[in-house]
């Protein structure tokens, strides 16, 4: 079963604009992570936010977490063509063994030059 569901499924923006994608999940978590996947490649970890954190920044990335709504958002500011990729949220569920992550279905982001 998919723990995380991203919204929107696809997003097309102009270079320089901001991109926001959202993730909703179902159960209590230890942390939530965001990954990027370029076409035909493996996933790359972007940022991790713990359940007791509300906001985190890394470069042009800003992640928020609302555990009461079981949702997270990823904001990419001043987007570039190189940001074109699929973005996945992944949840580390509370009491899950083996630090297993459950991935959502992803948001496909296209940044037009």
């Amino acid at each position, binding site marked *: 079963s*998919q723990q995380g569901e991203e919204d929107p499924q696809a997003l097309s923006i102009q270079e320089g604009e901001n991109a926001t994608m959202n993730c909703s999940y179902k159960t209590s978590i230890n942390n939530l992570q965001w990954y990027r996947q370029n076409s035909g490649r493996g996933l790359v970890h972007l940022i991790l936010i713990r359940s007791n954190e509300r906001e985190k920044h890394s470069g042009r990335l800003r992640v928020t977490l609302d555990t009461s709504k079981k949702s997270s958002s990823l904001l990419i500011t001043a987007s570039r063509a190189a940001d074109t990729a699929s973005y996945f949220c992944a949840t580390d569920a509370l009491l899950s063994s*083996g*630090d297993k992550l459950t991935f959502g279905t992803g948001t496909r982001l296209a940044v037009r030059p």
Partner: protein
Amino acid sequence: NAGVTQTPKFRVLKTGQSMTLLCAQDMNHEYMYWYRQDPGMGLRLIHYSVGEGTTAKGEVPDGYNVSRLKKQNFLLGLESAAPSQTSVYFCASSYSSGTRGNEQFFGPGTRLTVL
């Protein structure tokens, strides 16, 4: 450091054939995972391992077996391939959350087609 490597990169099998996918990591990670990725379905966990000599089932384990005889290697086997196993397979590894953050490091993937 090579990170996480997977072999082969591509493979075409006929129904009923067997094969083994190899994953290797050089980061001394305790945990290793095998996922499959199908269009519109994200990644689904097949099997995972929390240490040398241990394996456990994930979300979609049927039709697959795994072994972790060495800490750095995690093998995924298909004993009798079926067309439903056509997919892209990813291996990943991580430290345990008890030691460090549990972000996962992914290999480049193996694209498998079963005819």
